C-alpha cells in the first residue's frame, strides 16, 4: 500500500478546478448538435428520406414535367412499369412509369404534385396545432389562474363536433380567402386552419403537465431571483425543456394532419377535386385496390414513410438538442 502511494504521481487535488481532458476547441453549438445528430442512424436515414421526398416534390415536377391534372383517357389504367417483370400481359409503358389512373392521369406526376400539397398541409397544420397547443399548455401550466379556464377550453374543443365546425368555417371563410388568395391558396389556408385548430388539444394537455412539473424546479426559482421576467422564463427556461414531448406530438400531428386532409376532401371541404394530395389519392384508389394495388400502396407507403422518418428525425433531433445526451 505504501509502495503504491509512494509511486503515485503527485495527485492534483483541485478536481473541481482543472479540466480533466485537454480543453476542447471552442465549437459552435450547432456543430455539436450536428455531431450528435449524425450519430443517430435512424435520424440520419429519416432525415435523408425527408430531404429526398422534399427535393423530389420540389424539383421532381421540373424533371418529370407531365401535368398532374392532365387527362389522357387513351392511356388510362396503365400499370407501373415494374409489373411487367412478372406479368407480361400488363399494360405498361415508359410514358407512364408508375402507371395512370382511371382517367389517364399520370401517377408519378400526381404523386409528386400530391406530395407538395400533403407535405405543405401536413407541416403547416402540424406546426399550427403545435404552436396553439404549446401556447395554451404553457399558459395553463405557468399561470395558475389561467389553468382552469384554459383546460375547460380544451375540453370544449375536444367535444366539438368536427364536421359542423368545418362546414361553418367553409361558409364563413371560403369566399374571403378565395378572393384574397385565389382558390387553391385560400383553400390551403382554410384546411390548415381547420386541422390546426381541431388538433392542438393533446399537445396542450401534455405540455401543461410537463410545465407544471418543470415550474417547481429550482432553476425556475433561480431565474426569478435574478429578475427574469415571466415571458423570458417561458421562452428560455421552460420551452427548451419541453422539447421532447412536443417532438412526439409533432410526429403524431404530421400523420394526423396528412390523413385528416384526405378525410376533408372526402367530405368535399378540401381542395378542388382535381387537385391531388396523397391522402386523396389513397382514398380514391381504395375501391380499385384489388386491380391496381399500386394506387393505394404508393401514396400509402409515402405517407407511412414520411411519418416514420419524421418520427426518427424527431428522436434524433431530441437527442441532439438535449445537451445532457449530447455530452455522452
Amino acid at each position: 500500500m505504501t509502495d503504491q502511494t509512494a509511486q503515485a504521481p503527485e495527485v492534483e487535488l483541485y478536481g473541481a478546478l482543472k479540466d480533466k481532458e485537454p480543453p476542447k476547441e471552442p465549437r459552435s453549438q450547432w456543430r455539436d448538435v450536428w455531431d450528435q445528430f449524425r450519430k443517430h442512424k435512424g435520424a440520419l436515414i429519416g432525415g435523408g428520406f425527408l430531404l429526398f421526398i422534399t427535393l423530389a416534390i420540389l424539383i421532381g415536377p421540373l424533371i418529370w414535367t407531365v401535368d398532374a391534372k392532365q387527362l389522357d383517357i387513351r392511356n388510362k389504367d396503365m400499370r407501373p412499369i415494374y409489373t411487367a417483370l412478372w406479368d407480361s400481359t400488363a399494360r405498361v409503358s415508359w410514358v407512364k412509369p408508375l402507371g395512370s389512373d382511371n382517367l389517364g392521369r399520370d401517377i408519378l406526376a400526381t404523386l409528386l404534385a400530391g406530395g407538395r400539397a400533403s407535405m405543405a398541409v401536413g407541416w403547416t397544420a402540424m406546426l399550427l396545432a403545435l404552436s396553439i397547443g404549446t401556447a395554451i399548455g404553457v399558459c395553463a401550466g405557468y399561470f395558475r389562474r389561467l389553468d382552469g379556464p384554459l383546460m375547460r377550453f380544451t375540453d370544449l374543443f375536444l367535444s366539438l363536433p368536427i364536421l359542423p365546425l368545418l362546414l361553418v368555417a367553409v361558409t364563413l371563410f371560403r369566399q374571403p380567402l378565395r378572393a384574397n388568395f385565389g382558390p387553391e391558396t385560400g383553400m390551403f389556408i382554410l384546411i390548415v386552419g381547420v386541422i390546426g385548430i381541431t388538433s392542438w388539444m393533446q399537445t396542450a394537455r401534455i405540455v401543461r403537465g410537463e410545465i407544471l412539473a418543470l415550474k417547481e424546479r429550482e432553476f425556475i426559482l433561480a431565474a426569478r431571483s435574478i429578475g427574469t421576467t415571466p415571458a423570458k422564463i417561458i421562452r428560455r427556461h421552460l420551452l427548451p425543456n419541453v422539447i421532447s414531448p412536443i417532438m412526439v406530438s409533432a410526429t403524431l400531428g404530421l400523420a394526423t394532419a396528412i390523413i385528416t386532409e384526405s378525410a376533408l376532401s372526402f367530405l368535399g371541404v378540401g381542395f378542388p377535386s382535381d387537385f391531388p394530395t396523397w391522402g386523396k389519392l389513397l382514398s380514391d384508389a381504395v375501391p380499385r385496390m384489388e386491380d391496381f394495388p399500386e394506387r393505394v400502396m404508393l401514396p400509402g407507403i409515402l405517407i407511412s414513410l414520411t411519418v416514420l422518418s419524421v418520427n426518427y428525425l424527431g428522436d434524433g433531433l431530441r437527442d441532439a438538442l438535449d445537451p445532457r445526451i449530447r455530452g455522452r
Partner: protein
Amino acid sequence: DGHAGERGRDGQLNIIYWQAPSTLNPFLSGGTKENEAASLVLESLARFNENGEMVPWLAESIPTVENGGVAEDLTSITWTLKEGVVWSDGSAFTADDLIFTHEYCTHPESGCASVSYFDGITSVEAEGERGVKITFDAPKPFPYTAFVGAEAPILQKAQFQECLGARAPECTDANFGPIGTGPFVVSEFRPNDVITYVANENYREEGKPAFASITFKGGGDAVAAARSVLETGEFDYAWNLQLAPDVLDRMEAAGKGTVVAAYGTSVERLHLNQTNPDPALGPDMRSVFMNGENAHPFLTDPKVGQALSMAIDRQLIVDVGYGAGGQPTCNVLPAPELYASTANDGCLVQDIEGANALLDEAGWVDSNGNGIRDKDGVELSVLYQTSTNAVRQDTQALIKDWWRQIGVETELRNVDASVFFGGDPGSPDTFQKFYADIEMYTNNFAGVDPEAYMANWLCSDIPTPATQWQGSNIQRFCTPEYDELVEKMSVTANLEERGELAKQMNDMIMQSYSIIPLVHRGNPSAHANSLGGVKMSDWDSELWNIADWYRIKN
C-alpha cells in the same frame, strides 16, 4: 323454377341499402330509401311497372275517361278497391282508410312530404261498397297522383287516427311499424340501421311472398354494399350502386351476382347560370334574377353554351362513370318515350373543332395568349360546382379537360351533398343559390307525368332572396313563350298533345343551352344470381314486386 309453392318457402332474403331508412312512414320523410322500405308493407291503389305503365294494385283496375273511372271534365276520379284485401292485422281494408290517409297528409301541421300528391283534391269520399271518389277543384289531366306509387301509399286508419297533425311524430310505434296490406310485416325496426320483416300471413295472394323473412340492412357505402352482393354473397340485393363501371364490372366478374339498372327520368345535367354570380356583386345581386338585367356575362349566349355542350363526349362520361347505369342524352326530359324529343340528338357526338369554330365565330378568341378565350375583356372562365361524389368528380375532371381544349378555363368545386342540396338560405353553397357559373346534379320527376317537372322552369319559379332562395328554376331561365306552354299543358288532357307540348318545352330549354344534359341515369342495383323475379322499376319503388321474388334453386 321454384315459382310456385307455399308462402315463405324460400326462407331468408337479405337486402342492403347503404343509406339506411330512418322511418317507415313515407309521409314523414319523403326520402327514397324510406319510401322503398315502406313499400314492402304499405301499398297504393296502383303501382308503376318496370316500363312505367300503371298496374292496378289495391284497385280493381285503372280508372280512365274511357272506362268511366275519370269524369269527362277531368275533375274527379273514382277507384274501385280490390275485393278481399285485409290489413296484416286481419281487419278489413276500406275506403275509410283512404279518406283518413288524405286527411292525415293534408293536415296543415303534419309536414307531410307527399302533400303535393294530394294537391287540388277537394274531397275523398266513399262511393258504394268498394268505390272511392276523389274530387278535384279543377280539371286534372293526369289524376293518378294520390294513392298511386310509393310516395303516396295508404295508411291504416285504426293505427294512425291518433297521430294527426302535430302529433304525428309522437306515434313512434306506428311510424316504425306501420300496418299494411303488403306482402311483409315489420317485426323489428331500428332507425338508420336494420329492419326485419316477416311474411304477411294475411297477404291476399296465395303462396306469396316466397320469402319468409327479410333483413333489410342499412349503412356503409356503395362499394361495400356492392361487394356484399357481388363478391362475398352475404346479401341478395343491393340498392343504388352509383359506382364507376370498372369497379362494378370487376366485382360482377366474381360471378355471384348481377348488376341491373332501371331507367326512369333522371338526367345528370349542367345548369348554366343565366344571372351573374360575381362575388363582387353582393348578396342582393349575386345570382339574383332581375328580369334580364344582371345577366351572366357570357352564359346567356347560346353559342357559348352550345360550344360547351359540343365539347363534351357524353359516351365517355358514361363509360368512365356510369356503365350500365347511364346512357348519353341530349334531353332534359328523356322518358317516357311519348315525351322524349329527338331534335337535339346531334349532341351525342363530341365535336371539339366545331365548338372552337363556333366560339371563333361568336367572337370569343384568345386575344391575350393565355390559352383562354375572351371578348371585350371578359374571359371564358367558369366556376363549376357539384356535390361531392366520386363519379361526379371524375366527370368534372373530364369536362374541365375538354373545355380547356376549347379555350375555356374551369375551376372545380365540390360541396358536401347535405349542404349543396340542403337549401339553407344562410349557406353560400346550396344549389339553389347557385353562387357559381355552372353546376351539375341530377333531377327527375316522380311518376310518369312530366307536367309538374316541366313547370320547374317558369319565370316565377326562379329562386331569389325574396323567396328565401326557394324555387326550382335553378338556372334562372325565363322566357314568356315557355311560360305560355306550361300554361297550355296544364289544361290539355290529350296524351298526344301533351307529348308534343312536353317535347316543345324540352327543345326550348335545350336550345337556350341553359341546361346541358349529360347522362340519362339509370338506377343500378345488384342482385344475387340466385334471386329470381326482380323487375327493376325506376317509376316506383324498386321493390314494388317483391311479393314475386323467389330463390332460384339449382
